[in-house]
């Protein structure tokens, strides 16, 4: 599923579909889910896309054109075709309903349905094994979170055998799991269906007044009369710690990026046993220059940061920040807690903190961003928690 409009990530989604938004300097958000597929041996993938598809399509060609059709491996992009209906995809369930012919053609026994906009590492084979062992009609992957945080989400009630017996949407009093009264189960947007059951449910849903959404419509209805189980997500690499992030809002996107910068991050990009694939263009190595005076900012210093290839740091201090390829930082700058996307340039003596600087944006010398939010709000988008976003194409003067 890669068809969300990404409104809460605006203006990052102005020119990019949400799954094609850059994350962690060099990746696109969708790379994490697709890397999970690749690492789980799943190589027959349909990508249901909708909004601002061009950049996503380009990325798919550059980064993911690796499967071999002759071995029946593929990733096929399926935008709405409007063959039999007069509308785009009206919801997650409708996007599959409109492509029933593909399921008919493929005739798999089970279908794995994934969201293309979450950051996590998961071996889907283990979930599929669980689903088959339980002979479930539907298995929903869930992550355990503290119940205090669950009131904003969809919460599942389960019995001791992991069977789902109830669903609460944004509950005032979230149900907890039988094995830990402090934790609630929330959906990760990862589902395994028996194919025939999936087809029956999406047809039934298409004939109803409905938002045509798996989370809001299909699953709550199925719980009452079908065999629906929870798969309790365990992070592939971290044992007891489950790392799963929805990066659907500017704040959660910024926070998840910043989490990569910890000395021992829970989500480790450097783990060679669970590689994250992407496309990287030809670029020279990152370069940091100017030894300058030790106290002043003419000295190029980067700490706790990800610096991509092609970056040029000509003096200035960079702390807790992520620089995508070809970012240039000029002398006496101070960059903190910020994400600078591809080709952004920061002029000398500029100061930036808690900001996202869009692709190709040039920040003039002596400019400040993130130090006076009232002023920043007059020109830029400022998120709830005070992240300033300068969108791609914006002329800063």
């Amino acid at each position, binding site marked *: 599923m890669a068809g969300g409009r990404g409104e809460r990530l605006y203006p990052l989604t102005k020119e990019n579909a949400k799954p094609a938004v850059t994350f962690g300097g060099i990746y696109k958000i969708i790379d994490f889910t697709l890397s999970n597929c690749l690492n789980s041996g799943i190589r027959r993938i349909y990508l249901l896309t909708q909004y601002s598809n061009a950049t996503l399509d380009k990325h798919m060609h550059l980064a993911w054109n690796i499967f071999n059709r002759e071995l029946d491996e593929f990733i096929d992009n399926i935008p709405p075709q409007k063959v039999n209906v007069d509308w785009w995809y009206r919801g997650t369930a409708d996007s599959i309903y409109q492509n*029933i012919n593909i399921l*008919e053609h493929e005739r798999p026994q089970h279908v794995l349905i994934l969201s293309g906009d979450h950051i996590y590492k998961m071996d889907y084979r283990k979930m599929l094994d669980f689903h088959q062992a339980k002979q479930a009609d539907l298995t929903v992957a869930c992550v355990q979170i503290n119940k205090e945080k669950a009131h904003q989400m969809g919460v599942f009630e389960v019995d001791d055998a992991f069977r789902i017996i109830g669903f609460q949407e944004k509950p005032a009093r979230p149900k907890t799991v039988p094995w830990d009264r402090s934790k609630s189960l929330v959906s990760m947007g990862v589902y395994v269906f028996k194919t025939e059951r999936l087809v029956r449910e999406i047809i039934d849903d298409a*004939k109803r007044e409905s938002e045509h959404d798996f989370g809001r419509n299909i699953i709550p209805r199925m719980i009452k009369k079908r065999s629906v189980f929870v798969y309790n997500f365990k992070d592939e690499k971290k044992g007891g710690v489950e790392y799963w992030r929805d990066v659907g809002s500017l704040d959660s996107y910024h926070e998840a990026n910043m989490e990569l910068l910890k000395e021992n991050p829970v989500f480790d990009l450097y783990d060679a046993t669970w590689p994250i694939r992407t496309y990287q263009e030809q670029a020279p190595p990152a370069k940091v220059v100017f030894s300058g005076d030790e106290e002043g900012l003419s000295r190029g210093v980067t700490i706790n940061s990800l610096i991509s290839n092609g970056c040029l740091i000509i003096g200035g201090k960079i702390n807790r920040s992520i620089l995508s390829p070809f970012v240039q930082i000029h002398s006496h700058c101070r960059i903190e807690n910020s994400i600078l996307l591809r080709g952004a340039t920061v002029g000398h003596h500029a100061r930036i903190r808690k900001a996202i600087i869009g692709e190709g944006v040039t920040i003039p010398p002596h400019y400040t961003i993130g130090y006076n939010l009232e002023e920043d709000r007059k020109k830029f988008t400022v998120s709830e928690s005070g992240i300033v976003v300068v969108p791609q194409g914006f002329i800063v003067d």
Partner: protein
Amino acid sequence: MEQAQKKILIVDDEESIRILYKQELEEEGYAVILAANAYEALEIVDKESLDIMVLDIKMPGMDGIEAMQKIVGKKNNIPIIINSAYPHFKDSFMTWVAEEYVVKSSNLQELKDKIKQLLNKTPE
């Protein structure tokens, strides 16, 4: 108060079938509208308020499966009975969009029973 007459659309490319079904179903007290192909059926769906539809699959031009998907796209609340001489389409996911699947037979009893069942079915 007398119940309003239920309106059935029959879509079949064979004229003899259309005539037979019209006669038999009118005797059961239904109002019957006929379409000789899928294109006519789609026009009727736009104009008429239908209670149920009986749809052939193999027809020249647009077949019944394609028509059914377009019909559900226009109006998703008309029950559809597929009525085909071929039983094997029953396994196709595409035909599951229909509420019932009745294989053609010289005896129309099964079709009549299914029509009655679907018309009496109360929505969930």
